[in-house]
């Protein structure tokens, strides 16, 4: 493995880790935060007929999960395109 491509790979891996950590923070906050630990507090507010905490626990968190995966898909495709130079590809061939 060439030096150039391994530093490119490690840049890719670090960018990937940063992205994953950010997305998981949102994932955790929406489900465990808004859906569970803050639910009793949020239930004093309403969205339509839904108490807000109840809404996040039974509807809102699921919509956010879907959005998170598609953000990840798009960002990773962009990262792949950025780091996947022909050089790196050649290194990877068996």
């Amino acid at each position: 493995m060439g030096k150039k491509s391994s530093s490119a790979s490690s840049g890719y891996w670090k960018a990937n880790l940063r992205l994953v950590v950010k997305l998981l923070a949102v994932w955790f906050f929406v489900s465990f935060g808004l859906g569970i630990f803050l639910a009793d507090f949020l239930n004093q507010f309403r969205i339509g007929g839904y108490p807000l905490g109840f809404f996040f626990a039974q509807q809102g968190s699921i919509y956010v999960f879907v959005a998170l995966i598609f953000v990840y898909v798009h960002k990773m495709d962009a990262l792949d395109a950025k780091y996947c130079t022909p050089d790196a590809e050649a290194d990877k061939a068996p």
Partner: protein
Amino acid sequence: MSTQTWTYLVVGASFALYLGIAYWARASSTKDFYVAGGSVSPIANGMATAADWMSAASFISLAGIIGFMGYDASAYLMGWTGGYVLLALLLAPYLRKFGKFTVPEFIGERYYSKTARLVAVVCLIVASITYVIGQMKGVGVAFSRFLQVPYEIGVMAGMAIVFFYAVLGGMKGITYTQIAQYCVLIFAYTVPAIFISLTLTGMPLPQLGLGATMADGSGTFLLERLDQVVTDLGFAQYTAHKGTHLNMALLTASLMIGTAGLPHVIIRFFTVPKVSDARKSAGWALIFIAILFTTAPGVGAMARLNLHQTVQSGPVGSPEGNLEYAQRPQWFKNWEITGLLVFEDKNDDGRIQYYDDKNPKFTATAESYGWLGNELTTVDRDIMALANPEIANLPRWVIALVAAGGLAAALSTAAGLLLAIASAISHDLLKGMLRPEISEKQELRASRISMAVAILLAGYLGLNPPGFAAQVVALAFGLAASSLFPALMMGIFSTRINRPGAILGMLAGLGSTLLYIFLYKGWFFVPGTNLLVDNPQGWICGIAPASFGVIGAMANFAVAFTVSRFTEPPPEGVRRLILRLREPSIN
């Protein structure tokens, strides 16, 4: 046409469709059999994953659990969907990049150890068998309603069909059948939900109906009405939290990481052509899953409201407020035959009183009404989704459709689980360890035989289930969460975790979780052998057995890190394997 005729017709037609597809797409090589040739498009795989994933528990039990538990059931909703975020971000793309057939195969190569592979096989089999029990229970419920036969015969009929089906399919057949099954199950789930939502709230989408006002012109929100109706009968408020935050958070976390660690779901991501497809596919899978999972809360709440309003047809407390047993509707009689709905006239007034007689605060009120105990002595939660269209007086073909949908959900998941079990035994155990010299043809035959053994065992346990279908399934999640997920994740994200660390970690996770579950559910689920009482008072720190998976996972991580720290790092070849998984790829 009668409901019975419609049901035979619709279920018969759906079975003919599956068998036709399974025959058309039968496997001719081990690559076909294990990963459908690796050529499934991400959207198609997403749909198949959704069917694989959404089991009898999702289709049959979820709405019932939500209906009876209210807010507290949100752990299942968030747990069974949130896990896909973990799967997409932490496992699926890397395991696809690894590019082999089974989950134990990855663990075996990453930890350069046949023992690690064997431990993974054991974890996989224990988790999958536990999970398949829930499917058997679901099939039994659906069949007993559909064929009007006792539950036991329903389970056996289900076993026969699932067996035939899984053997014919292989991953290739299973994939295309699951796509058809997804269409059947989602149609069957949403159609009655839309009807019921329209009737009760005037809103076609149950997601909106649940947050809307009642259509009776009262201007009351549906959830407010439901809170009122259930608290008037002594039950806990629907939208409020009943259990502890800690237990709910642990259960949610256990279900999430269990979801990400379940082998029958992971292997679905081996079937797509590219790494980026594995990520996309996880997103599509969650969209298809979310359609059902955001509908289920509406179905659960509305079914509960309908049930109470049927039985408690007038004001609470007045003698005429309760339904006369002789006047009970047809659906009531249908479900009495199955033994899943039982009435006992405790105060001999010929009317049905359904209320919470376990609530000490409500006892005096109930006595003042002349009620001598709850008279619906059995209301199995599992029947709620299936009985819902009948309770709401929907057209007969809709009722028939629900039977077909429930069976589609149970069959598709059972097939996926059996494939995971069979491939672990034939590919990992037999071909990988015991008899590497066997031919491809012999390997195929071995996987079919191991399916047969698994299904017999699952059928036996299905006849003696340790709890409601969804809760049995929750135990499988605890096992996947505590053993497989940590091993897979550390295998990708750490270059330091080595063979002894991984093996001891998996054993610690699996052992502690099994021990905790057996303490409450009985050794190997044998009734009466439990050492501790399985209720919130008996749980250590209020932690339910189903919530323990995440603690087992922590034990796994801790043991693996500690042991790896004091032992030799993995060899250079393994380090290169890990670095290869972390490289970008556009192919």
